[in-house]
């Protein structure tokens, strides 16, 4: 196996909440536990997906990897070097090696810049390239690479003169300017029309193959995650609760939360219009200030038993084939699920007979 580019161990980010007077007097503090002990590693040339609902900490994890936020606890290693608490020049270097594609390409580009200026800026900041002529050649090459051609036509345009898809291409081009070792893509296609979404993802995947790029793909959309990623981690309330090869996670999910997420996805097939969707989950996501004891999913889980909230939180255990799951009862649930499916099948048979 190749060397992992990024290793996160027990990565934690807690945000303080403004204290009330009584809390100040009692020396108490409440914390939003946005990322609460996350461990994963990303191999070179791999696309690693982080999925989960809003508020699960996936974007915060992305920002920690970028070092846009200070890490509360845990360690982060990029290419074998500890970057957890780096500052100054080392931090600048880190940000050169790790680039980010944001959700809204319009908000992440200076509207007064032309595309040329947008793409030049990272080179100027990091003082890469010997002169303007050399940089100019690079900018043109990258634009061809993301299929914004002919480059001359696009270089003079401002972000508002591009369509949503073109803007996201330009944003991708900008991250490529510094030849990064890791790209964090935070919901890069969620604001793009369905018809062009696939086009952007195909382009990103093609670039990954050609240039050997490594991505962390953050999304709430499981169906694009399946196509786009090699490995997937499902987050819930600041923790990874299931992780493994994308196909395995989606077709053979074991954690009840992952199963609920998958059950909730709509599929473009006929014959579902008069059925009520079966989403095996109850209640709503609790606040990250007040994380339930034991397994953090237990209040919403249909299979939880006393030991789920009385005992310690289950760990993310490898169950073979790189598939990891943090659930105490996954074997029983799997058996229950199969039993339910068999009874359903027999019912179906009876109905047709």
């Amino acid at each position, binding site marked *: 196996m190749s060397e992992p580019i990024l290793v996160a161990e027990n990565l934690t980010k807690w945000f303080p909440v403004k204290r009330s007077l009584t809390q100040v007097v009692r020396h108490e503090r409440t914390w939003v536990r946005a990322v609460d002990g996350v461990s994963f590693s990303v191999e070179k040339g791999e696309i690693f997906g982080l999925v989960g*609902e*809003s508020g699960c900490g996936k974007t915060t994890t992305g920002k920690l990897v970028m070092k846009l936020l200070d890490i509360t606890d845990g360690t982060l290693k990029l290419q074998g070097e500890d970057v957890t608490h780096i500052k100054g020049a080392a931090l600048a270097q880190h940000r050169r090696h790790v680039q980010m594609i944001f959700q809204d390409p319009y908000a992440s580009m200076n509207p007064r810049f032309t595309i040329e200026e947008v793409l030049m800026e990272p080179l100027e900041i990091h003082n890469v390239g010997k002169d303007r002529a050399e940089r100019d050649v690079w900018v043109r090459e990258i634009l061809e690479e993301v299929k914004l051609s002919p480059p001359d036509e696009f270089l003079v345009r401002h972000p508002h003169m591009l*369509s*949503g*898809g073109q803007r996201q291409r330009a944003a991708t081009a900008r991250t490529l300017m510094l030849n990064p070792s890791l790209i964090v893509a935070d919901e890069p296609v969620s604001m793009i*029309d*369905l*018809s*062009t*979404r*696939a*086009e952007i*993802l*195909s382009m990103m995947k093609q670039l990954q193959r050609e240039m050997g790029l490594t991505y962390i793909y953050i999304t*709430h*959309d*499981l*169906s*694009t995650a*399946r*196509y786009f990623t090699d490995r997937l981690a499902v987050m819930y309330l600041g923790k990874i609760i299931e992780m493994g090869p994308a*196909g395995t996670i*989606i*077709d053979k999910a074991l954690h009840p939360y992952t199963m*609920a*997420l*998958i*059950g*909730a*996805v*709509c*599929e*473009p*097939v*006929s*014959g*579902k*219009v*008069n059925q*009520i*969707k079966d*989403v095996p*989950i109850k209640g*709503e*996501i609790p606040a990250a200030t007040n994380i339930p004891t034991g397994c953090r999913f237990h209040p919403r889980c249909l299979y939880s038993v006393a030991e789920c909230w009385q005992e310690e939180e289950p760990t993310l255990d490898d169950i073979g084939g790189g598939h990891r799951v943090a659930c105490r009862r996954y074997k029983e649930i799997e058996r229950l699920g199969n039993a339910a499916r068999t009874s359903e099948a027999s019912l179906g048979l009876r109905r047709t007979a």
Partner: protein
Amino acid sequence: MEKERVLEVQDLELHYFTRKGVVKAVDKLSFFLRKGETLGVVGESGCGKTTMGTALLNMPTPPGRIIGGRILLDGQDILKLSENEVRRRVRWETIAMVFQGAMNCLTPVYTIEKQMRETLQQHRTMEKAEAKERMKNYLNLVGLSDDVLRRYPHELSGGMKQRVVIATALFLEPKVIICDEPTTALDVVVQAQIINLLKDLKEQVGVSFIFITHDLSIEAEVSDRILVMYAGRIAEMGTNAQIYGPQGPAHPYTQRLLGATPRLHEEVEELAFIPGTPPDLIAPPEGCRFHPRCPVLLERCAQDDVPLREIEPDHMVACWRCFDE
């Protein structure tokens, strides 16, 4: 026997008069909605689906103007009514709309009770106690408890706010509710819950829905019939089975749109997409509006305007390839 039609739209035209020129956002649209059915409207952004929704309330956003056509709601043309009559008798009374990002429609400084009562008071004279009873009933119907009435919007989650908005749209008992992307800002689990709620309401209350979204996979789960819009016109309209069934849709645009919709349980090497961008509606292409992006175009597609024709019962297509001539 065919069910009664609650809404019939004929040759509806809505243009935006901008400085750059006239944008033909809705161009001679004709369709109908039966009682108790859900009609899905899909298309890419800018195809005119939201514009069409506002037109149905006779509420075009300036600089838009409805310049032609008829909207028959219960047999009455609402475009002929005065603004006052529309406001009193039509909007929210017979046809209501749940807007895109509806959770942001709630005023942050009012309690839910106050905002809901405001709608009610505009339309009905009612004792406070009776009004409160009615609000409670409708909140319960959408799966919320009574104490939501005392709350402010910021105390509710996105899904709960969406339910409040749906309850508010429902409680004057309209015949038609237009839902414009009601689930796009919501998480998948909450989205599934809202979809279930809408299905449940359709059965319990018997209201008809027009469900606008860009996502064909959501339409597959909620809509009895699907209307596919492209560049202000109808490309295809058919039943759920005709669009999503094994034979697949007839129009190349619908086929491609469906091809670009990812499926969860299928291993795919390459996702399909539609090259090019939707046309500029100030100067739409000659002939079939999809022809510049169409993979299977014929010679005549670039020249002759293509009509919408019925190719089998309930299945209308605007594509020269689909007509046997």
